[in-house]
């Protein structure tokens, strides 16, 4: 067996390590105020990171992609079941039902669901290439599957994750070679769904209105809905070139809600400055580049689409999170992959990285085979 692209192991681990540090820095005060324990969040994140490394290594070495391909429909079913279960048994937090308690861990079924959906979509598109099946048979069924999962996520309600899953599915169709004209229809459908969801949920409506107001006037309602974004911008902007130094940030002192999860980038920017954020961007760019390289080199259509889907999931979450933190998108609760506090998302992303490594290893062996063939019978 050939070795895969080691960058795909190193970069996620680097990001996870950075995440653990930043989670500690940004959550210690919250830990003290909520649980009288500055290490409360750190301990949990370290535990999850350790678990995540095991998952990463397991995915990178133990997973048989052929078996995975075969199991894709079953996994998809399990993901849907989890998403349904969350309604019956889930925890309510922040106006949304997103959590499922299994043993000592709270699991976010969204993260499980989106991975199984991507796997299943790759499985389906390999068997039914959209370019060959036409609009109705080639496009509607995969959109239906993605739509079903996204719809379940949407009902929690978690508009942003649902939206990102929808965009991922759409882009996978694009990668799978669907005619561009056919792709216009789902864009329209997605827009309509988004508008309806926003209309129906006041808190999302408010966030979008705040964002629109911010985009057009550059000012924020600093006391109401714009508070989080305003505090985030203050954190990022006050970092300057070199930041306040690790642990020296001020905005995490309960000014910035969710500093250790959705707005961890703001704390990183405040404490490490533009130098630190640039380093983070370099890490992310390197990771996405190596991932896309895996996608480009994949020989098998399932490998190609699975790698593409996983890359898009990581990339889109990163972009959306950064856009929210910097005020380029309406405020939503999306974690920064590998960095933000959160168990299921970290495990899911590390598993995705492991699978990408696995695929890169398969690519390498295919490439080696091709090279061997071309070099003829030379010993």
């Amino acid at each position: 067996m050939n070795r895969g692209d080691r960058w795909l192991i190193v970069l996620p681990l680097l990001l996870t390590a950075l995440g653990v540090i930043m989670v500690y820095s940004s959550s210690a005060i919250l830990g003290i105020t909520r649980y009288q324990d500055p290490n409360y969040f750190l301990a949990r994140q370290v535990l999850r990171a350790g678990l995540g490394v095991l998952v990463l290594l397991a995915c990178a070495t133990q997973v048989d992609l052929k078996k995975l391909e075969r199991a894709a429909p079953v996994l998809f079913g399990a993901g849907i079941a989890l998403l349904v279960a969350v309604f019956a048994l889930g925890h309510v937090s922040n106006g949304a039902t997103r959590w499922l308690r299994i043993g000592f861990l709270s699991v976010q079924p969204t993260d499980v669901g989106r991975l199984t959906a991507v796997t299943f979509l790759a499985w389906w598109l390999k068997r039914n290439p959209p370019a060959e099946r036409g609009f109705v048979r080639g496009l509607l069924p995969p959109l239906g599957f993605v739509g079903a999962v996204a719809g379940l996520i949407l009902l929690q309600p978690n508009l942003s994750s649902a939206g990102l899953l929808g965009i991922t599915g759409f882009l996978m169709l694009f990668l799978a070679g669907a005619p561009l004209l056919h792709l216009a229809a789902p864009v329209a459908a997605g827009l309509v769904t988004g508008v309806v969801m926003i209309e129906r949920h006041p808190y999302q409506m408010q966030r979008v209105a705040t964002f629109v107001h911010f985009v057009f006037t550059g000012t924020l309602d600093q006391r109401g809905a714009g508070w989080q974004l305003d505090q985030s911008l203050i954190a990022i902007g006050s970092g300057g070139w070199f930041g306040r130094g690790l642990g020296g940030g001020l905005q995490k002192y309960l000014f910035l809600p969710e500093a250790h999860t959705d707005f961890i980038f703001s704390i990183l920017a405040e404490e490490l400055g533009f130098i630190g954020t640039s380093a983070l961007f370099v890490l992310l760019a390197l990771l996405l580049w190596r991932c896309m390289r895996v996608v480009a080199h994949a020989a098998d259509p399932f490998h190609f689409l699975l790698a593409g889907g996983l890359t898009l999931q990581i990339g889109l979450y990163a972009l959306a999170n950064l856009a929210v933190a910097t005020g380029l998108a309406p405020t939503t609760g999306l974690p920064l992959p590998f960095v933000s506090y959160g168990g299921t998302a970290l495990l899911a992303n590390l598993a995705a990285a492991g699978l990408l490594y696995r695929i890169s290893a398969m690519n390498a062996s295919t490439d080696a085979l091709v090279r061997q063939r071309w070099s003829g019978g030379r010993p």
Partner: protein
Amino acid sequence: MAHRDSRRSRVLVAAAGLLLCLVVLWLRVGWLQVVQHSYYAGRAELNQEQRVLVRPVRGELLDRRGRPLARDLLTCSVSAAPREMADPAAVARGLAALLHLDARWLAGEFRAHPRFVWVARHQPPEVGETVAARNWRGVHLSVETRRDYTLGAAASEILGRTDLDDSGVDGLELQLDGELRGRPGWSTMFRVGKSHTVGLPRGLNRAPADGRSAVLTLDLDLQGIVEHHLARAVDSLRAVRGFALFLDPRTGEILASVCVPHLPPGKARNWPFTDQYEPGSTFKVVAAGIALEENLARPGQYFEAGLGRVLVAPGCRFADSHEAAGFTLFGAVQYSSNIVMARLGLLAGSERLYRYATALGFGSLTGLDFPGEAAGRLHSPAHWSARSCPTIAIGHEVSVTPLQLALAYAAIANGGVLMEPMLVREVRGAGGGALHRYGPRAARRVFSEATTASLREMLTAVVDSGTAKAARIPGFVLAGKTGTAQKFDPVIKGYSPGKYLSSFVGFAPANAPTLVGIVVIDEPRTGHYYGGEIAAPVFREVMLDLRRLPDGPFGTGSTEVAAKPPVPAAVVVPDLRLLPQSAAERRLAENGLRARFEGRGPRALAQSPAAGQAAERGASVTVWLAAPAGSAGLVQPDLVGLPLREALRRLTPRQVRTRITGSGIVVRQAPEAGMPLVPGSECRLWCEPGVPPAASPSPGPLSVLPAHAERANAVRTGA
């Protein structure tokens, strides 16, 4: 293969899209962090609405021996947030036991106010420590300070007060506020919801710098003694008020300044510095001093007194209470003869009278910098009338503050040197080390040693057998002078009968004075009003108490004082006549003299002291400026301070149109004095009603004076 190429290009598009978005975000972050950094750094600072000011401890005011007069006391206030407690009832029992409160009542308070309740305020710090040691959850301590004044109200006028924000609002607390205030510190606190704040563990705070302390020249004992006797006198005489000032004649250090009654903060004024009044007979030492210093008269020289009523000058009739055919100069001081003193005033002449009075500090601020200090009133001889010389000589047509008068007597007591008054001896840092020390400073020599020795003898005789016999203490030689002035009543616009201001200025011991004091009683209402009967006994009581004090100014250690400062060497006054103003000022500066200009005009016409005379270095020379002869009518005269009628009389020959606003005294004029005046142009005068300056001519001779020497015209009390 077309399919494979299309796949490759689509991957490229996706990858390019992702990376492009990443670059856009990177630029956005760069924009926020680099370009807009200063804006957001400022916004981050503004999050300090959670910043809590930590007040510094205000510096202490100490008396001359380091005993506190005003200090910040730390107090501890205990508050509770019963909601945070595990067992409010148990905490209530514990707290009640510690603070000696009713446990049942406290438990009830806890139930009634679950969020916040004051348990006990302004407790001593030890109580706070014991409460803190119990470490109850939900019990909070806050440290506060309270300004404590050792003497209470007795020194409240001179020391002043602080407001709720701990900054000085009047008196020395205001004057020294910059030193005492210190620099506040802050620490960053964060509010979560409404119930609790979180202090930042470390960093992000600035310790407050405590204020500096000031060692004052005041003497705690003396201040208390004077206040006691003055208050008793004001009470028993049913007087409106009384004030007293004591200082050390050798150094100019102010030892006590007392006002009675003690008005509420905001209305209280330190009258010895802020009030000016017509001094009456206490001012007579000036004329007597001039006569001796300028060799106009010898102490034994005999003056006619015409059995109590004499026309001293045309239109000026003066009267004495002590009817005699005549006095020696010595006797005139001893029995306070108006007639002889008025004659001496005429003998001295306006120039000398004015020069010596200004040299003694009358008519100008003493340089004490005390808030609200008054300058007194002494008009320049240009505004004097024929009556002014004799009237000023007996202490009318001038207003003085008790401080000025005490300093003038101090000059007589210490051998002729006018001292600058002192209130602060030393400024100490928060740690206790001295930062600045202030020593006594002499302003100038006014009288020679011989003159002051004669004056001291006369003033000793005043107490021994003259008008101030009530101050006499067997076995202890005092000196002093009494004064009684009738008060001016603004309602009837004249001196009101039966309202007097009785005063006494004295020093002790008479041969080597270490203490000068002035006592003024306003409107005594028991029938007596002579300064010798009303104010002198207060001085006597103070002296008696001081002599009993083992370490008082007359005790054994009293002779050690800072070395007497050297008197500036004399210089010869240059001839300034016909010099332009700037040249005259320069020539005076070259000789170490100060210039004081009177009038307007391009050239100096006259000067005082005259050219060739000796003057102390730093003394001021008065230079009268005037326009060249012939152009006098074309220059705007100086009308400010004149009654309107007189101003109009002076303007008449100049053929200008006048526009008048208000009535009474001219307070402002346009064009300014000294400006060229075109006949037919307009001259505006702004007037305000008020008492005409003493020097202004008023209709009718000042002939009807009260039948007593002590009694005199007076007094505008306050503005």
